[in-house]
């Protein structure tokens, strides 16, 4: 797809309508139909070559949001399965990390965090629960909000998110933050967990869609070694429906050819080398360490922790708590039936879970996937849970006569 620069007005449209033009460019159902047909052809070829249905994985809650929001799965070929992997940073934040934040809040330290994180329970209560008991927990929309709070008091910013948001946290730490500002990092780094998925026994995944916003930072080149090592293709994708369809066509065409290359289908934002300044900031502040991702596994180099030079900003070192002492026993009978881990690993779908939509809802989540706006279960619940709708003809006559 030749998208052109963002905001550019396509030929034939009046000038002065950049927003409307951008919508037409990336949300044009007529172009989606053409891409949908290309996707069907590519899937047919891939099935011919491999003798099995095509399964690909994306690793981003925003991709799942767009797929569900625009009803894209209803237009996918029956022989194509697009599954969501561990693409929700709040969902993969591990129990001891939540427990640490809860313990700090209970000690009277002001803990600032993103709204989604509030309702994720640790081994015991969630940050929201202890806020209800009077512990100082503040919801922030960005690290800038946390910095503003820290101008007047000591604040522990419980920071979650992948390399995209980690850069913002790193930049804040390098920009002479207020003395009371500390970070409890639950930041995660996506490339290593793709290795885990690729090495899973019985893996069905034949290729990955990589998240465009993360690749804006890391560059598409970060996936080159991965492709070569695992003989799996990776296509970088943006978040508009046409971005996703175009990237899927490119990915399935690679599966059909048996190739395993990095293909950047989000070139209006992503380059091969990425944002070098952001990378420099990220790695100056954080170092990758191994750690558990909730429900999945120990991920070598999957967690981002503050380097020694920032020890004085590291809440983990300034206010050490022993997470083991906080654990409040075995999970409940209901939680034991939750298949969240398998869903995040891409082995199960939300509809495979006996709790989905019944005992587990956004209001009363059992698993972390139902808590966050980026969690697979939450997204499926928001958009009806049944994703395999038939391919019926358009509902209303198309006034422009574009109906295929």
């Amino acid at each position, binding site marked *: 797809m030749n998208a052109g620069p963002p905001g550019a007005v396509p030929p034939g449209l009046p000038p002065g309508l950049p*927003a409307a033009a951008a919508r037409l460019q990336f*949300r044009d*159902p007529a172009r*989606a139909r053409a891409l949908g047909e290309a996707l069907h052809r590519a899937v047919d070829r891939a099935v011919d070559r491999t003798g099995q249905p095509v399964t690909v994985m994306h690793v981003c809650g925003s991709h799942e*949001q767009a797929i*569900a*929001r*625009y*009803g*894209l*799965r*209803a*237009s996918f070929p029956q022989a194509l399965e697009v599954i969501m992997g561990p693409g929700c940073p709040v969902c993969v934040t591990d*129990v001891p990390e939540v427990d640490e934040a809860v313990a700090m809040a209970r000690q009277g330290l002001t803990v600032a965090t993103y709204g989604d994180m509030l309702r994720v*329970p640790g*081994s*015991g209560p969630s940050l929201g629960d202890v806020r209800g008991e009077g512990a100082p927990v503040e919801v922030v929309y960005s690290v800038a909000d946390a910095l503003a709070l820290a101008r007047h008091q000591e604040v522990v910013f419980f920071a979650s998110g992948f390399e995209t948001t980690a850069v913002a946290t790193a930049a804040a730490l390098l920009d002479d933050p207020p003395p009371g500002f500390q970070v409890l990092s639950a930041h995660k780094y996506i490339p290593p967990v793709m290795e*885990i998925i690729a090495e*899973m*026994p019985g893996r069905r995944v034949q290729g990955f869609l990589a998240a465009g916003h993360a690749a804006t930072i890391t560059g598409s080149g970060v996936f080159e070694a991965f492709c070569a090592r695992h003989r799996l293709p990776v296509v970088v994708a943006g978040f508009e429906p046409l971005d996703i*369809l175009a990237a899927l066509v490119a990915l399935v065409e690679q599966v059909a050819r048996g190739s395993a290359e990095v293909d950047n289908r989000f070139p209006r934002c992503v380059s091969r080398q990425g944002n070098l300044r952001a990378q420099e900031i990220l790695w100056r502040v954080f170092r990758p360490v191994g750690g558990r991702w*909730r*429900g999945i*596994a120990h991920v070598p180099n999957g967690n981002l922790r503050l380097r020694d030079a920032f020890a004085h900003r590291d809440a983990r070192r300034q206010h050490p708590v022993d997470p083991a002492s906080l654990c*409040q026993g075995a*999970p*409940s*009978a*209901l*939680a*034991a*039936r*939750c298949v*969240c*881990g*398998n869903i995040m*690993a891409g*082995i199960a779908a939300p509809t495979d879970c006996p709790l989905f939509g019944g*005992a587990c*809802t*956004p*209001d009363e989540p*059992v*698993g*972390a*996937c139902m808590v966050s*706006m980026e969690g697979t279960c939450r997204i499926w*619940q*928001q*958009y*009806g*849970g*049944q*994703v395999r*709708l*038939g391919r*019926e003809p*358009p*509902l*209303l006559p198309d006034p422009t006569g574009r109906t295929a």
Partner: protein
Amino acid sequence: MSLDVCPLPARGPSDRIRLREGAGGQAMRELIQDLFLARAVHVRPDEVGPRDMDDGAAIRLGDGFLVMTTDAHVIQPAIFPGGDIGRLSICGTVNDLAVMGATDILGLTVAVVLEEGFSRADLERIWSSLQDAAEEAGAPVLTGDTKVMRRGELDGIVITTSGVGLARRVVRSRGLHAGDQLIVSGTVGDHGLAVLAARAGLGLEGALLSDVAPVRALVAAALEAGGEGIVAMKDPTRGGLAGALSEMIGGSNLGVLLDEASVPLSEPVRAAAELLGIDPLIVANEGKVVFAVRPEATAAVLAALRAQPLGTRAAVIGTATVERPGWVVLDTGFGRRLVVEPEGEPLPRIC
């Protein structure tokens, strides 16, 4: 490698009332059915009573019906872009009467409960706005009540209005047949997004205005043009268009096919919804009506609506079908998905 279960503790059912029990969705309907309707009266089959869970009640009076309804308003902030709790509390009741078919409004009652310390200037503004809306709606305020509670016992102001009107024919919210067309009287999502953006301090307030308005004249014009061809009406308040459509097909063996490209949206709503990640189909409107219309009446109803100041952007947005009974299916232009009635309370105190 072993994959462990997700180790979250589960929470038991609550023995306390939760916010979602006032959110207009399934949880609220369950509370009403399980508790409030347990000993509710029965009415004659041609009348509408509490068990019908419609927008109001209708009882026989001569050769027509007396329609009555009541509505409590708790919106935060009380003064919001495009309106205030005074205008809202008139429109809430007038619109519930209108969508039952009662466009001849006999009178309203207004009960105001205030918190000690509430600004007198704000109260004067709210009251003036309430009177203006009542005049605009042709709905006289006939009596009322005033209470003040101690500071902290109430958040600012609560206004409860009740109304009675006359209808020649009662139009229920349910009454659809397969093939009926669905018309919305204008853009959707304006009220909810205006209130939410004001609360979040997004700086979009100048562009985003609540649509709060009395729809009595709009409904009267539609009924005049469509007659018996209008089979159901509903005002899409809490739960938005999605919630209204779910209620309209509730308990029937019908589904709705909704065409997203046909749903009217203002540009500020489109932009704010995108920015906030909120689906404009599920947020409240306070000056809109959804009509279910026999196909042969569609053109006349649409023309009549578009001739009204509040109906210039009226549009056919979908059809009632026997496909996927009980579900609203959205054709996005890219594919199809289900539209789910919002559960929980994404936007508390919206009306």
